[in-house]
């Protein structure tokens, strides 16, 4: 490896002696390259260790354009994740997953050809490229003569100690400590399950316009779930935290807060009821309630649905969709956030996109295809689950800017309704605009006060209608640190979300219906 110029010239994840000496699984692919010496590696940093050179990328892009495609890109990825699980008091399961592969995409107008392979050899890449090339049927086009490395890439997930340098014992002590604290927090706790993951994903994207960029994207998640018993009854709840961060993320304070939150939110379920069914005012607590935005507007603003004319928002740009104090953002710039990105999976810069500004619908979330279709700049929302998939417009961190109201005033304004605090999942039908989110914890609001706790209830609304019905927005924006994962067309990507305290004047709560008449 030492004589490989790519490693010393530009490294995204450095490959110092410490890393090479480590026994952690993430370095196991640092074996001698199969293709070493096939050409200069200018612009290729991390992937040089797998024999990737500019020359190899150039010839792959040439094959990709050999049938006349307008544009081609390659996406290399090396994904290493490690997971430890704790059950019945012991860390008794370790899992590791390594994925290394490359996807080749060819665009002809808005048509896409795609192929991928785990066989990182000139033959393997050529096969994938020719598969993708077949979307076009015309004379061959030229690939790029030279590559230009993306300049001034931000550093939104600075890591002091790389995960591969953390010994398993260090992780074990975090897990064992968390388990002990959770049992100690309340004698009614009967079962604790923990799942801890660290992931390092490094990607390289290069395209036929000559752009090339690499990015190393760390991620860690901690899942904590509890089963409690009281007088023969059982309740369960869970919490998770996620960040693009190193082990320093797991401070004693953060872990303590996880424990107290999950224990409190489990014990309160013993007193919880299912709320009445039907339409009523709903107050969304600051934080994880950003799920409302993700489902009610976020997906509908992904430009692929609009380009295809199938989103309920397809004809609403420039139109008022909400009260003037409602502004909604999707961005990837929050340092260390689960939804943060230095660059998207098409190599485009990631910034801040206003979906709604002062109540008016302003911009869709674009990938390269939709940006070209609409004649706008890409917004850095072209994302994919991995090299096995094509990129498409996806959210990053979606939230609402703070508004003019006080949280207390919002709760006090509701005579009879519910307050929603913790959530597990949501879904939307893009065209009809109907969306749901599932409430794990909340309270009834009676005469302006939080009264009985509620649990396990689905809420359903219609995106544009609910946006119109947001009539109070608090000044207390909170970005949730939960490990949210968004699925679309079978691809999962990590996202963040947030919300200030918000009132929706009427929405359907799926409680237990009372028989009428």
């Amino acid at each position, binding site marked *: 490896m030492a004589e490989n110029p790519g490693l010393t010239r530009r490294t995204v994840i450095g490959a110092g002696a410490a890393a090479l000496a480590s026994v952690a699984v993430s370095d196991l692919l640092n074996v001698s390259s199969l293709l070493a010496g096939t050409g200069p590696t200018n612009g290729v940093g991390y992937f040089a260790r797998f024999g990737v050179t500019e020359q190899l990328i150039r010839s792959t892009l040439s094959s990709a354009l050999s049938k006349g495609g307008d544009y081609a890109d390659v996406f290399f990825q090396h994904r290493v994740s490690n997971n430890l699980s704790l059950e019945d008091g012991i860390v008794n399961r370790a899992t*590791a997953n390594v994925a290394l592969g490359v996807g080749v995409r060819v665009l002809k107008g808005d048509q896409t050809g795609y192929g991928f392979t785990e066989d990182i050899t000139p033959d393997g890449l050529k096969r994938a490229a020719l598969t993708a090339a077949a979307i076009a049927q015309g004379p061959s086009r030229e690939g790029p003569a030279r590559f230009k490395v993306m300049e001034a890439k931000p550093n939104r997930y600075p890591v002091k100690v790389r995960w591969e340098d953390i010994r398993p014992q260090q992780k074990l002590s975090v897990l064992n400590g968390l388990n002990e604290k959770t049992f100690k927090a309340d004698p009614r706790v009967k079962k604790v399950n923990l799942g801890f993951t660290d992931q390092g994903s490094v990607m390289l994207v290069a395209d036929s316009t000559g752009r090339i960029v690499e990015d190393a994207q760390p991620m860690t998640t901690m899942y904590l779930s509890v089963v409690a*018993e009281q007088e023969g009854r059982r309740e369960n709840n869970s919490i998770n935290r996620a960040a693009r961060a190193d082990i320093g993320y797991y401070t004693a304070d953060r872990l303590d807060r996880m424990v107290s939150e999950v224990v409190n939110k489990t014990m309160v379920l013993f007193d919880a009821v299912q709320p009445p069914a039907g339409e009523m005012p709903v107050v969304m607590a600051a934080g994880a309630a950003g799920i409302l935005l993700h489902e009610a507007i976020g997906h509908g603003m992904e430009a692929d649905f609009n380009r295809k004319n199938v989103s309920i928002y397809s004809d609403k740009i420039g139109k008022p969709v909400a009260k003037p104090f409602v502004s909604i953002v999707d961005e990837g710039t929050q340092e260390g956030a689960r939804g943060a990105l230095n660059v998207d999976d098409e190599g485009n810069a990631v910034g801040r996109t206003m979906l709604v500004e002062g109540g008016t619908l302003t911009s869709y979330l674009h990938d390269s295809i939709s940006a070209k279709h609409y004649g706008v700049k890409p917004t850095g929302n072209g994302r994919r689950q991995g090299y096995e998939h094509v990129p498409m417009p996806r959210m990053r961190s979606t939230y609402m800017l703070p508004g003019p109201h006080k949280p207390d005033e919002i709760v006090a304004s509701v005579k009879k309704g519910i307050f929603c605090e913790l959530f597990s999942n949501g879904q939307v039908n893009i065209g009809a605009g109907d969306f*749901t989110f599932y409430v794990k914890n909340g309270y009834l609001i009676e005469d302006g006060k939080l009264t009985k706790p509620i649990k396990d209830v689905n809420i359903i609304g219609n995106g544009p209608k609910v946006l119109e019905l947001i009539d109070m927005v608090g000044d207390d924006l909170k970005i949730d640190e939960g490990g949210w994962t968004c699925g679309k067309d079978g691809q999962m990507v990590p996202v963040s979300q947030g919300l200030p305290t918000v009132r929706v004047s009427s929405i359907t709560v799926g409680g237990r219906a009372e028989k009428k008449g």
Partner: protein
Amino acid sequence: MTTMGKTNEQDMLAIAQSAITVAKSAGAKDASARAYRVRDVSLDYRDGKVEKISESTTRGLNVQLYVDGRFSSVSTSDLRPEALKTFITDSIAVSRAIAPDPFRALPDAELYKGQSSANLQLEDPKYFGVTADEGRKAAKAAHDAARGVKGSDAILSVTSSFSSNLVENWMVTSNGFSGANRGTSFFVSAQVSAKDGDGRRPEEFDYAGSRFWGSVPDISSIGASAAQRTLRRLGAKKGQTEAMTVIVDNRAAGRLLGMLGVALQASSLQQKRSFLEGKLGQQVVSPLISITDDPLVPTAFGSRKFDNEGIAAKPRAVFADGVLKSYYVDTYYGRKLKMEPTSGSISNLSWKLGAKSQKELLAGAKDALLITSFIGGNSNSGTGDFSVGVVGFRVRNGEIAEPLSEMNLSGNHLEFWKKLAALGNDPFPYSAMRSPTLVFENVSVAGT
């Protein structure tokens, strides 16, 4: 258009075997390895032209390691011999850092015995003859049929697709199991969206598939059905909150059964997260429900001769006349619970069917809700509480009437499944759940 890559069948079996050899020589007491290869072809066709073609062959290896009483499960897509050797050796080192777990062990080798010798017919011998171009023709036919239905002026967009795959697995364990399986599948689908009066753009879809290309049902009917389903959604409104008769379409019903499935898992029982714990032998659902987990149904999507641990697959009653007969028990949780392993995962479900078609069941309903799909929602496997969004139609005097949306169905499984009043004769063929149409009485539905 693509070739299969350089590995051949012998290579993949050899890779699984060599993983066991490497693991044992590096200090694992036992190991289980599964090498797999999946070839996927998919094609989307939208509004008159191909939108996307994707073809790939992916492969990898999963290895389960039993080291000094400790357990780890690792997987990789880098199958180069030297990389694999380092990967397994170092994974064993990581395994040694975690806690010993006396319940971790390979299955009793006796359970590997007695595999069915039946021909399950899971692979289409003509798989490689079905090219992407054939897929394009099928997708186009579905698309054109959708555009051709009565009322198609309201259609905004039609996306149809073709997909096929060939899945191959080679599994070896250090206590004597060796097995392989192959299966193909082909699916054609169509998704249609239409413009509604109020700016909504409802969309619906339909699909069909088979393990044999020649057995995929009439493709134009899939497109036409997707379009008709969408056009029927125009003008959907929220209905009233009330308790009523609910008829669940066979395509949608699998979701409800999947919720029960979580509570049937031994892991849920052992972790005190199952409302079905301690209920073996008890009447927990309507006496109309008799369901067998049947891994040996020829051509079905969940069929298999051995499960993911190598345990020989056998049909097994799960519910008989509403009485809970068995759980899904894998080796690990079986040892923790002192229960005999059955299998840890659902294969296919075979239901005792009713006598009537969905149409006949609808005809018998004076006033009901027909649920055609669920949206979002969740279920608490510990308490049995569930709440899900529903999409469907009002049924009046035996006829499908106005479309309904933005409604929720909530309840507790232990009460809900006792309200089952009838089953259809129509198991949904394109999912392993194979549920028929289900009719429930006096169920809470929330709307306005």
